């Protein structure tokens, strides 16, 4: 009991510390001072009166949302004496693996830089700045020569690293037993089984209404949809983050989604935020970074060719170029196992005073990175709002998909969860695919790394991402991947090569995610 109490006070202290530096704090203070003018505030009961005032005016709600946001994002220290690295990643071997992977990426970036004799960063001459400013809304028509640029890495390179991860403290033994894991990931992380997943995803059960199932044209809207929409509107009026997160587990109506996501992510567009975005835009105009070319190349290779997202090509540049200059993103490295790469001013290699983070936000884009932003363009058409939403989605969720960690939503756990689900509940299929040299993870990895963006139809993808927000976890990606394999199991059992298996799973655009998930979790005999 005492331990819990001291944990709680530690948590409270940390959150208060964090919020003290925020804009919200300044606003609350201002509001409190201003409220002294009000007749209902009396000196004798100052504290209670101000609290009451905050409650009525909605400021308490805003504070609640901010606290809730902090709780969702920041992992809590397991022990007050834990060093900061433990917050990033408690397991040493994972930290080491991430460190060496980062070294490789940076080396690759630097050598590309040297080969092409392009500086990592340079200031743009004034003429070029003017040109870029004019072209800001149509950077897609710019055709710089990108043929010499290659993406720094692709998901499959990352997969190879994960396959080779080993826990030096763990002895598998050479003999095969029923406990042997037949998949590619060979690290002993704890993942959930179906009964545990059913508990976690209880709102996806067969007796609960879902958008993505119970809103199809054959179902009369009076049964579920109308009421669900009404509740959604109520949640939005109340402006309660926690309620919104609970609500969205059953899916979000299309018309309410943009606002609900903003509420859950605690994004509100204040003038300061718009100003901040404009500042980033100015940084882009003034300086050219090597990563900009990587971003261009990525967009041209992926989103520009996508049936759903090609329309938003220019928005992608506007978001991603600004993102790479946003130093506020650096704060997420406190709980990300990754660390921002460091670069040194020319000629001062190794001297810490001349070290800078490169790119300024510490995130080096890889092939497919722009697909994290693309689906958001269906919801937000105002660039600074779009930017804020993407940034928050990244520092809450997406970063976990390309860094090595033991977190349950980290990509390593997701891979292991996927493979374990398949091996436990579809053993025949798993064994068959393994025998023909088509390890299932080789096919599903790219889906999970991209959070299925570019593989599912957009409306289905948004229903999936609703649940990611609702459960504050990426585990659903692994479950969906397994459910897809289960769905196409009959065809997969007949293939005899990796290429044929890829072909069976090449087109996911007709899949309906919610029925697949429901059947896999709640309707399959286990």
């Amino acid at each position, binding site marked *: 009991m005492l331990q819990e109490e001291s944990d709680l006070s530690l948590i409270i202290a940390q959150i208060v510390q964090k919020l003290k530096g925020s804009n919200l704090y300044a606003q609350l203070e201002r509001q409190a001072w201003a409220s002294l003018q009000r007749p209902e505030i009396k000196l004798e009961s100052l504290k209670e009166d101000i609290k009451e005032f905050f409650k009525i005016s909605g400021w308490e709600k805003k504070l609640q949302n901010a606290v809730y946001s902090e709780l969702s994002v920041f992992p809590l220290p397991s022990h007050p004496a834990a060093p900061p690295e433990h917050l990033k990643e408690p397991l040493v071997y994972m930290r080491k693996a991430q460190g060496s992977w980062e070294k490789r990426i940076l080396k690759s970036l630097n050598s590309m830089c040297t080969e092409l004799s392009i500086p990592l960063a340079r200031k743009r001459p004034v003429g070029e700045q003017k040109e870029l400013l004019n072209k800001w*809304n149509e950077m897609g028509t710019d055709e710089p020569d990108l043929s010499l640029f290659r993406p720094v890495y692709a998901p499959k390179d990352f997969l190879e690293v994960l396959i080779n991860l080993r826990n030096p403290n763990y002895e598998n033994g050479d003999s095969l037993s029923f406990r042997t894991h037949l998949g590619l990931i060979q690290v002993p992380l704890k993942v959930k089984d179906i009964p545990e997943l059913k508990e976690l995803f209880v709102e996806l059960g067969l007796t609960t209404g879902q958008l993505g199932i119970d809103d199809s044209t054959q179902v009369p809207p009076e049964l579920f949809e109308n009421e669900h929409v009404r509740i959604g509107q109520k949640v939005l009026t109340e402006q309660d983050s926690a309620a919104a997160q609970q609500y969205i587990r059953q899916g979000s109506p299309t*018309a309410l989604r943009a606002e609900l996501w903003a509420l859950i992510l605690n994004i509100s567009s204040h003038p300061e935020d718009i100003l901040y975005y404009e500042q980033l835009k100015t940084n882009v105009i003034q300086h050219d970074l090597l990563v900009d070319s990587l971003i261009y190349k990525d967009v041209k290779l992926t989103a520009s060719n996508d049936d759903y997202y090609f329309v938003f090509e220019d928005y992608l540049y506007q978001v991603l170029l600004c993102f790479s200059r946003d130093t506020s993103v650096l704060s997420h490295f406190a709980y990300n196992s990754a660390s921002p790469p460091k670069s040194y001013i020319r000629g001062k290699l190794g001297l810490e005073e001349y070290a800078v983070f490169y790119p300024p936000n510490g995130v080096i884009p890889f092939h497919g990175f722009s697909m994290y932003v693309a689906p958001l363009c*269906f919801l937000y*058409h105002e660039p600074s709002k779009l930017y804020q939403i993407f940034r928050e989605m990244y520092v809450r969720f997406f970063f976990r998909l390309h860094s090595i960690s033991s977190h349950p939503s980290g990509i390593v756990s997701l891979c292991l969860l996927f493979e374990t689900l398949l091996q436990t509940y579809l053993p025949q299929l798993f064994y068959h695919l393994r025998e023909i040299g088509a390890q299932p993870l080789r096919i599903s990895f790219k889906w999970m790394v991209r959070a299925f963006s570019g593989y599912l139809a*957009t*409306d289905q993808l948004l229903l999936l991402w609703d649940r990611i927000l609702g459960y504050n976890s990426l585990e659903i990606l692994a479950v969906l991947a397994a459910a897809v394999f289960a769905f196409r199991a009959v065809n997969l059992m007949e293939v005899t090569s990796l290429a044929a298996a890829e072909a069976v799973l090449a087109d996911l655009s007709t899949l309906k995610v919610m029925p697949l998930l429901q059947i896999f979790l709640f309707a399959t005999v286990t």
Partner: protein
Amino acid sequence: MAGKVKWVTDMEKSVLINNFEKRGWVQVTENEDWNFYWMSVQTIRNVFSVETGYRLSDDQIVNHFPNHYELTRKDLMVKNIKRYRKELEKEGSPLAEKDESGKYLYLDFVPITYMLPADYNLFVEEFRKSPSSTWIMKPCGKAQGKGIFLINKLSQIKKWSRDSKTSSFVTQSTKEAYVISLYINNPLLIGGRKFDLRLYVLVSTYRPLRCYMYKLGFCRFCTVKYTPSTSELDNMFVHLTNVAIQKHGEDYNHIHGGKWTVSNLRLYLESTRGKEVTSRLFDEIHWIIVQSLKAVAPVMNNDKHCFECYGYDIIIDDKLKPWLIEVNASPSLTSSTANDRILKYNLINDTLNIAVPNGEIPDCKWNKSPPKEVLGNYEILYDEELAQGDGADRELRSRSGQSLGPKASRLRDAGRTVLTTWK
């Protein structure tokens, strides 16, 4: 009646031929006994012309109405719609209601249009009312964006003035006629780009009017960012969405072809603008299609050997109002991308299932009421018989799974001029 359907076509299009062959139909030439002829618009002219025409027998079907040009020629379409509006006004129909500024409340869906050179003076009067406006000149008889240009000064169209002394426009032959319409310079932009909608509508009979809308329409995007700036008036890549033009742009992409499905559009609009305004937009689109067909129905030669699949071009402005730009009698059957090919193949497939029931030798005397199951990706847009029948309401609601759902019943109500439920 055993025997395979004998087909002819004068258009070498794989989406057509594949569909005929998959039904086991037999290809013949036009001089032989044929049952089904998918013809180009030139050929239909010959079939029904006074000199070269011939009577079609009961087991012959063609894919155009004899005088389809009443709808598909830009000038005649506008003429018919104007006539239709005036008639409704004369009858005192609430459909023809106008607002304070004299604009039709429900029937204002075609941008102001004049024929040149016939209405030149009327046009000048209108032009002078708002001299900074842009107008679009379109040749009446051409397609694929050919011959279209934008003007913002009277001097640019001096040639069409009736008093013009230049000899180049002495001939008043219909081939040289142009229409000039107010250019919609505030189109709805997505990703900063202009787009238009291509929707396919199948008409099996005009009297009673029975038409079907293909659910899988698409949006055609311009490859270049839209700007109303006058310096770019000549840049056709900015303004004209025809694929025939866009395909030659530098940024044309052969994977998606600059096309979006209508369902993407719907998702985007619902997410960014809300469900009600989006539903209202789509209702309005269905409305204007039905009204345009009703406008030409009285003058259409409702030959029982005919059906027609039209390509409707619609532009949405930034106030989410749809405008009817034109109707094509021969929508392109060329495929620009793989998805396109699939779409057009399915379009022809579903069209044939409705027009030639059971794929058997047709009898043009049939009642043209296909069962629900063969509609495929078509939905009933408007069925005049049903709309006017007594038990129509109940029957329509039971059909709502296949037709347009709750919107359909509103649309039927509108047909009975109970507009309050619709608007």
